[in-house]
């Protein structure tokens, strides 16, 4: 179907956001609890995965470097608060713009080449930025940045009393990023992104400047990933290079989306809803087995997934929908 008019998807979306917004009304659900922590992380990681999905899912340019943009966003907010004593808001903006600039500078030369140069280059920048931030005194070096005690509220974007504030912060981030991707998906840029993924030369023959399209995707993607980083530093009251700029963090962007469904609007949310609770609860309960258990479980699930259904959970759902449509059509035919 042409994605122009209000669809079941939009209605589902509206209902979901309303339901989420009302969650804190359920007594005891979003107190200062572990469950609240998991819900906030699901929203955050779904947002991160969705920002990655723009360039790597819709446009098909796999990035392993999103932890760098995430990190730049985190440092943007962190430095605004810790280094300059401001609110994090100018830091959110500066970090995101910076991340978009870095993303464009890195990918410009890669997008003009074909093949896997882009993926390899993004792989390399993670290590480069990690080392750079470890030794760079201006950004706090290896010690990182620690937040002072600040009054709760939207101005400082911190809440220490309950998690309700962070919950609404995460929800706002989630609605913003999913909303932007939904808008892109139903407009020209979205069609161009997919066209470039499906056949770059074909897209060019239809007047699509594929380099510009990929750069735009990268800029949006990095900007939004950096916003997520901004939220992350606020939520943790601190940041240091390994927390944000690492292959481990990069892989979370990738794995969540692959599990849920690459290039699919709902994929990042589904992936986060499964992997994040798994990660947090296994961390909490399986510590006796040593750290890294969650990563092993991640890996196994993804491997199984790639064998059974490369399009992720959304692939299963779509195949099931197609089958039931066919069955309905067959019934009508009789």
């Amino acid at each position, binding site marked *: *179907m042409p994605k122009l008019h209000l669809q079941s998807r939009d209605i589902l979306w509206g209902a979901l956001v309303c339901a989420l917004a009302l969650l804190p009304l359920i007594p005891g659900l979003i107190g200062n609890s572990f469950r609240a922590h998991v819900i906030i992380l699901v929203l955050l990681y779904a947002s991160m995965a969705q920002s990655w999905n723009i360039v790597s899912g819709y446009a098909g340019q796999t990035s392993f470097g999103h932890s760098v943009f995430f990190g730049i966003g985190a440092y943007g907010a962190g430095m605004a608060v810790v280094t300059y004593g401001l609110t994090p808001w100018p830091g959110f903006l500066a970090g995101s713009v910076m991340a978009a600039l870095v993303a464009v500078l890195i990918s410009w030369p890669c997008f003009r080449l074909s093949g896997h140069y882009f993926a390899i280059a993004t792989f390399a920048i993670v290590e480069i930025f990690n080392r750079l931030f470890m030794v760079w005194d201006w950004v706090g070096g290896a010690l990182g940045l620690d937040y002072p005690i600040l009054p709760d509220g939207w101005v400082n974007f911190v809440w220490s009393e309950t998690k309700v504030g962070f919950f609404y912060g995460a929800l706002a981030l989630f609605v913003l990023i999913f909303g932007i991707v939904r808008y892109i998906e139903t407009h020209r840029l979205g069609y161009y992104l997919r066209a470039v993924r499906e056949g770059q*030369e*074909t*897209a060019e023959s239809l*007047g699509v400047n594929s380099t510009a399209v990929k750069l735009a995707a990268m800029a949006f993607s990095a900007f939004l990933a950096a916003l997520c980083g901004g939220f992350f530093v606020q939520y943790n009251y601190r940041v240091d290079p390994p927390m944000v700029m690492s292959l481990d963090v990069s892989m979370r962007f990738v794995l969540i989306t692959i599990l849920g469904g690459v290039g699919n609007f709902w994929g990042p949310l589904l992936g986060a809803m499964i992997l994040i609770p798994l990660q947090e609860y296994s961390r909490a309960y399986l510590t006796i087995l040593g750290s890294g258990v969650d990563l092993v479980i991640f890996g196994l699930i993804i491997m199984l997934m790639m064998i059974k259904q490369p399009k992720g959970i959304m692939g299963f759902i779509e195949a099931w929908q197609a089958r039931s449509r066919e069955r309905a059509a067959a019934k009508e035919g009789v």
Partner: protein
Amino acid sequence: MALLDVSHLTMKFGSLAANRDVSFAVEPGTIVGLIGPNGAGKTTVFNCLAGLYKPTEGRIVFDGRDITRLPAYRISRLGLARTFQVVRPLKEMTVLENILVGAYLRQADSRRAMQIAQHCLRTCFLEEDRDRPAGGLTIGNKKRLEVARALATGPKLLLLDEAVAGLTSTEVRQMVELIQGLRREGITILMVEHIMEAIMPIADKVVVLDGGIKIAEDRPAVVVENEEVIRAYLGEKFSRRLKAMKEAKPS
């Protein structure tokens, strides 16, 4: 002034010259055929015109502008659209979405772009498959999709590379009518075709390539009598058959 003016086009791949010193012109509002045996360099000419290849030598002027080394997307924006001989559907996108990508070239507004796409969908007889993933179409429909998508970009000149090859005879007739209809709408057409029955009756002019070199350029009636063309491509038998056809129903 000609809409397309190709002069001294040479395209080399290493030591192989796929096109050598090819010159021809396409007048606005005409249908021009580009024919010749397999490997003659027809698709290579198209790839040079559309900016997929950068010609080794020569000059291509389209609509008064030198487009010789422009990138493909700029050429498409100027109004020169092409289909691919080896079809290239955007597989995971539906038929309508494929065409919509073309339609967005002239119309950033989604609703209006959709109208253009719907129109091209109907024009090319693809309505039944509109919500199917393009990768799953039959070869005939993939060929039609190539045309519909190129058409959606609103071209002045449309390059069709064997757009009817592989179609049934009914489908060929349908496509030929479609092409004539496009000409009536003011679209100029340059088409590569092996099925002489499809091209000879509708072409105003035919350019013949053999081994990368242009060996003839004239009206179809004249070209079929050309000794060199007969030897290189048409064959005696075909030429006799075509003459007999002409005499049977003079138009």
